[in-house]
């Protein structure tokens, strides 16, 4: 046991930091730090710069651009990306569909998709959730019926993040009705411009357009767009959720928010600064301490996971700790940030004459209030806090297993 970072790890951190500082444009980092919504091109630009240095997909197999770095090094990388305000490599690409194609896709699919996914030449969105299949994802209804050289797909996906930016969507669809609802599910990819795909924007409570409904009406999907084997979609989905854990706790992101809070709260106002208020300062200090704990918990869980690869058995149940605590920290930081504001928080940045927030994006709301509203999503998506608690109670503590 050696509980400090090794000199090599520290050196790696410095190397990453200086590369990011030198190569990612300041305007992009400032926008991320201020939590302004980014134009699509900035995400692409940043990911391509990361990819050049091997920073976009280090956890992938080496032949497809992976780096074979230790979990600790990867966690350091993620933390640096987050705390420096560099847009993260698109998770749908690098953490979700990429690893699945690398593990289960055909050679042809790997060649066609993986380099484009790593370089964000293809932007993927995730079509899992449906109106009636949220926490209970396995009850999804979108159907794919065999037809000639492919499938005919009908159904509806919802809450699809960045469908408006995406070139492709990866979907879970039902290819047959089986006794267990987890069976008969398949995974397939489709270009977003396929005839029959319609996207309807959903404006969320933070005033920004991130999520969408995606309607699939008689979409023709050629057989070569089926990923892996028909009927094994649920296994792939579990595999995918067990992938990259280094970003699960959002440590760098919370650290960035907390630093911003300290800075904002220390600004002098005509009647003293917020940091002088004991109640506020205490809450901030607690958040900083807990985040420190989380950063180590995260390293521990990642380290345990990498010792014995959990493979398609799905995620290590302890990652639920990271997901929950990470969500809580982001939410607490967003509250503290809100609490640095005076009455000005009641005014949106843009004047009334401004355009539709769906096109104007974040200018409609002051970014801090918007981040407070928007941060509620962290305990909902990707397995809600309640679902994570269920996992911890059952899978880790063994509660409620009837004999």
């Amino acid at each position, binding site marked *: 046991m050696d509980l400090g970072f090794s000199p090599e790890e520290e050196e790696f951190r410095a190397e990453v930091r200086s590369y990011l500082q030198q190569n990612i444009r300041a305007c992009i980092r400032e926008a991320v730090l201020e939590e302004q919504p980014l134009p699509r091109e900035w995400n692409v630009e940043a990911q391509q710069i990361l990819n050049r240095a091997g920073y976009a997909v280090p956890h992938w197999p080496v032949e497809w651009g992976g780096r074979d770095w230790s979990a600790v090094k990867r966690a350091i990388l993620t933390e640096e990306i987050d705390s420096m305000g560099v847009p993260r490599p698109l998770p749908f690409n690098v953490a979700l569909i990429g690893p699945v194609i690398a593990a289960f896709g055909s050679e042809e699919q790997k060649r066609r998709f993986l380099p484009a996914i790593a370089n964000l030449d293809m932007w993927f969105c995730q079509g899992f*959730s449906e109106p*009636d299949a*949220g*926490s*209970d994802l396995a*009850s999804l209804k979108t159907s794919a019926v065999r037809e000639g050289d492919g499938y005919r797909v009908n159904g509806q996906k*919802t*809450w699809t993040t960045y469908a408006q930016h995406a070139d492709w969507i990866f979907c879970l669809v039902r290819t047959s009705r089986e006794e267990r609802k987890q069976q008969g599910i398949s995974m397939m990819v489709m270009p977003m411009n396929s005839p029959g795909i319609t996207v309807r924007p*959903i*404006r*969320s*409570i933070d*005033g920004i357009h991130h*999520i969408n409904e995606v309607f699939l009406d008689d979409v023709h999907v050629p057989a070569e767009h089926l990923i892996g084997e028909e009927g094994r979609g649920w296994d792939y989905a579990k595999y995918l959720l067990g992938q990259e854990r280094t970003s699960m706790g959002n440590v760098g992101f919370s650290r960035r928010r907390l630093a911003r809070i300290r800075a904002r709260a220390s600004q002098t*106002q*005509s*009647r003293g600064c*917020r940091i002088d*208020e004991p*109640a*506020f300062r205490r809450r901030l200090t607690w958040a900083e301490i807990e985040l420190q704990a989380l950063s180590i918990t995260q390293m521990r869980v990642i380290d345990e996971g990498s010792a014995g690869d959990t493979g398609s058995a799905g995620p290590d149940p302890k990652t639920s700790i990271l997901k929950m605590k990470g969500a809580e920290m982001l*939410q607490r930081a967003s*509250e503290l940030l*809100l*609490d640095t*504001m*005076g*009455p*000005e*928080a*009641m*005014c*949106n*940045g*843009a*004047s*009334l004459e401004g355009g539709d927030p769906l096109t104007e994006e974040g200018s*409609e*709301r*002051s970014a801090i*209030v*918007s981040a*407070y*509203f928007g941060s*509620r*999503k962290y*305990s*909902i*998506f990707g397995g*809600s*806090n*309640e679902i994570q*608690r269920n996992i911890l109670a059952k899978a880790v503590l063994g509660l409620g297993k009837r004999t």
Partner: protein
Amino acid sequence: MNFGLSEEQQMLSDSVDRMMAGHAQAAAADPISHWQDYCDLGLPALSLPEAHGGYGGAEEVMIAFTAYGRYLAEAPLLQPLLSGRVLSEAGGERAHDLLARIISGQDRVALCLWEPNSGWHWDAPQTKADPMAQGWRLRGQKTAVLDADASVWLLCPARMADGIGLFLVPPHSDGVKIKTMRTPDGRRVANFAFDGAYLPADAAIGDPTKNGALLARAIDEGIAAVCAEMVGAMDRLLEITVEYMETRKQFGVSIGSFQALQHRAADMLIEIEQAKSMTFHAVAAQRKDAANRSCNVAAAKALVNRAARFVGQQAIQLHGGMGMTEEYPAGRYFQRLTVLEMMFGNTDHHLSQVEKAGGVTG
């Protein structure tokens, strides 16, 4: 103490409820178009002396604002409550003329309490009124003026040698710059810059040595009203959430059958009941002397704020993705509650007001 509504109070409650429910059904592009209905019910004068058409006290104000919160009403009710008190007590012909026009719905007025970078402290304005031969020149900035636009009168506190001056600024005055925005819950809010705006001598109302105390009283009434609005909104939000829990099915059962979620809803109920009690306390405190009143009202706002944050966040959580959309009502209640949390001061602000007063006294 008597928690039941009198016959008159029940009538008020019913008619306010009916009106606001109707407005909520027929959403208007501009909520100001509903304002005349409020005036017809006498709401802007509600707690003023009878001579001005008043017919109630803080209890009646609470009744009206509870309904206002329940229906997420948007007609500008808070501002006339604040200004009405100030105008009626400050006295003078000009103030009373304006008050009459406000009560009848001909004119609107907005009290400009806060200034940039001063938090919620309103009692030491930096805005200045320089005396001139025939009047005054106003210089300074005001922020976050709810329900204000270029067509309203402004009631503007300013620093004077002997206290706080109160100035009436007519709509569309020269030397007044305005920027209208939306609050995060979609209502109208404005910032003002006074760049040497000229005001006639009789624009100054009240007595600078007493205006501070008068404003404090109006604000405390406003805080009690906002607490009531928050309770009304929380009550409805919990109803919406429980309805959703009963109808939303996952894993073949309604999510309301999960005990973890039942407990959460029960916790929300407890917080709301506590908030309601503290709102009653704030209403009762209006009859106390100034120091006692302000401390108890601040205590109420601190608790109601905390409840609102919990109830709002949990309502979103229990709705899952549906809670995150602006198209569904839960999110709009959460937005409204968040804005109201900030109205007159957030939780930390009110806690320190209570602490400065030496803690909660009975």
